[in-house]
């Protein structure tokens, strides 16, 4: 059995991870939400029919959005596509979030 010291360290690590997720940018959080919606649907539809409301947000088709869907990955890159709004988001490097393997 792990000692108390190890358990405390593990718990602190978990807290630190949660705090980092809390402090993430709004862009990162919305991107994570899109991932969560797709992951939820992928899992749930193997078990039951989806409810009418259980649809991922249809925001990725917008050309002006700087998001690229590539298979099971979603990229963000502010340089992609024309920006027609007064967006203040300028990400210098693309960030890749990969869905965990089932």
């Amino acid at each position, binding site marked *: 059995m792990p000692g108390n010291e190890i358990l405390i360290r593990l718990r602190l690590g978990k807290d630190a991870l*949660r705090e980092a997720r*809390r402090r993430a940018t709004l862009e990162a959080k919305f991107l994570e939400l899109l991932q969560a919606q797709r992951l939820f649907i992928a899992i749930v539809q193997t078990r039951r029919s989806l409810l009418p409301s259980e*649809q991922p*947000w249809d925001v990725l*088709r917008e050309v002006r959005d700087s998001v690229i869907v590539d298979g099971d990955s979603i990229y963000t890159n502010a340089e992609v596509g024309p920006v027609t709004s007064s*967006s203040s988001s300028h990400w210098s490097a693309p960030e890749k979030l990969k869905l965990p393997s089932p």
Partner: protein
Amino acid sequence: MLQSMADVVRALNDLIERGIIKDYAIGGAIGALFWDEVTNTFDVDVFVLLAQDGAVIDLGPIYKWAEEHGYPQSHEHIKISGIPVQLVPAPDILSEEAIREAATLSVEGLAVRVIRPEYLIAMWLKPPANNKTRRERASRLSESAQLDKDRLAALLTKYDLSW
């Protein structure tokens, strides 16, 4: 992505400018997202103070406005730039206070009203909204460093709420 959310904010501000609603504040899981980790959701809950007076609540002007702007409607939601938005008239005094006391934050440089975490918790603990999912959300949000614990305690006392 955030441009779509900014479109939602513009639409909400337009509702105020046209005098259809007096004020609004984003609540639910999206409201919490401004203060906490991400929780999965499929819509944006927006609590509104309607401009109309009287006991009868009429959402007709909102749906008419949505139709005029070409926003599709389905399952009590209005879809704005791909995001389903549910406009909920404040159901009680707590919700009205939550809207009035909402924080003004920023999305893509636009001012957006968001329900403060203490009020989100109070609303999730208040029957009949206090189902298991919402109580779990309330519990998670209560660990947020941005939470004003004194304010939350005062709210719970004021509205006779408990964990």
